[in-house]
């Protein structure tokens, strides 16, 4: 069964939005290209293809990454979530709804990446992760409130060439408020973050 020469392609199973897909990929294939060109999941966008713009952001095992710098073959066995897997049927995720309600986009090209990134920002913040905008990173200082400055810093890996940043920050803030008011709805808010928000 083993090939005579070392293989430069592999048959892999990708788990995307809960569905398993079996396909053979050249090892050079990025996760982004596999999603778009092989699985017809064109939500993740190819902007720079160099990890600099964030348009290709997806979640792998719940963590946001840029899919243009990840190899498809390396994601076998991991759970990939794209923008196509964020809504619950026809019911938009609160983060998606907030982007719609507050005009968190203009042309929409960066939006799938922005929303996937925002989902992770809420999780990372709820887990108590500091950011470069956090004045005191020591754990004793407690988790930082999700201020506009914190949101801007945490979302800085997603560029928007239309310049919809002001509305994007507002949308992420509203999604965070929604999550604080609805623990367990649409996201796994921790008790700690819920308590903090209601006490603020």
């Amino acid at each position, binding site marked *: 069964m083993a090939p005579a020469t*070392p*293989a*430069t392609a*592999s048959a892999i199973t990708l788990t995307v939005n809960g569905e398993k897909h079996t396909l053979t990929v*050249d*090892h*050079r294939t*990025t996760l982004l290209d596999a999603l778009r060109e092989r699985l017809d999941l064109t939500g993740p966008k190819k902007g720079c*293809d*160099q*990890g600099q713009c*964030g348009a290709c*952001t997806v979640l792998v095992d719940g*963590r*946001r*990454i*840029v899919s243009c*710098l*990840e*190899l498809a*073959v*390396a994601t076998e066995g991991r759970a990939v979530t794209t923008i196509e897997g964020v809504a619950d049927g026809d019911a938009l995720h609160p983060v998606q709804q907030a982007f719609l309600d507050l005009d968190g986009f203009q042309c929409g090209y960066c939006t799938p990446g922005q929303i996937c*990134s925002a989902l*992770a*920002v809420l999780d*990372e913040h709820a*887990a*108590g*992760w*500091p*950011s*470069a905008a*956090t004045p005191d*990173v*020591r*754990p*004793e200082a407690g988790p930082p409130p999700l201020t506009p400055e914190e949101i*801007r*810093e*945490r*979302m*800085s*890996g*997603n560029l928007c060439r239309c310049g919809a940043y002001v509305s994007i920050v507002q949308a992420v803030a509203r999604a965070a408020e929604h999550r604080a008011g609805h623990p367990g709805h649409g996201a796994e808010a921790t008790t700690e973050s819920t308590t903090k928000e209601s006490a603020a």
Partner: protein
Amino acid sequence: MREFVYQRATDISGAVALLDGDPQARFLGGGTNLVDLMKAGVERPDRLVDVRELPLGRIETTQDGGLRIGATVTNSELAAHPEVRRRYPALAQAVLAGASGQLRNMATVGGNLLQRTRCAYFTDTSLPCNKRSPGSGCPAVTGEHHNHAILGASEHCVAVHPSDMGVALAAFDAVVSYETTEGGGEVALADFYLPVGDTPHLETALPPGALITAVTLPPAQVASHSRYRKVRERASYAFAIGSAAAALDVADGMVREVRLAFGAVASRPWRAREAERVLTGRPPEGAAFAEAADAELAAARVLDQNAYKLPLMRNLVVALLTELAEETDR
């Protein structure tokens, strides 16, 4: 991109065995730099050995009270870890100052140390570069070099090391552990990066085929009062044009211990030992901070476009140490 074999390593000895004897093979960590360089044609490996499933993903307190950071710990995990934030806050800040949330989720500690310069000549295969193509020349010296080195460079290469994390590690005397087919070894971060000289293509002291397994921080009381500050051309998500990690311990109105390291000024994270020497035993005040910075920067050699880094680094050192000293007073 050249075709390549992909293999997932599941144990350390297996990983180093897979790379042994194949100088064109590479370990794959987060891939945030390597995959990008493969797309650009700068790296052309014939084999990638994915090390992310190796049991190197933990951060543990050592017996002497330091921290041992596994090589596949991601930047995100490192910056979020309570003991890092409590005992080496400048390290958490340095990591958080680098890249984006997405890239920090991918990038690993071992890979961070081995990332390559972002010098535009290095990444453009149509141009000469002594680091990429030994002996071909360095266009940066007479070309675009506004963000190039002012310390420790040579006429053969003036590229800077891009790591933020490494600057804090240099300040805290980190030690790099590695494994080879011949056995394991350790090298202090101070000796990890080789002098540029006329061999800029030789970057680290790691033996061929070595796998970084961990970075160990010795215990250091001074590190708990530390800070990282980064200057860049936009507010977030950009490489430094100058940065510094500092730690300060003041007793009886005098500097008892100080740690200082610079980023984006040299081919490696630059430990400012001369500045530390000048400052130790002096009152922690602006004039002494400036004198210490000047002592370190006395060895600097600037090019046409990067002379601004001298006042930038001087002001950065003074501001950073002043902040730390004021916190001591409170």
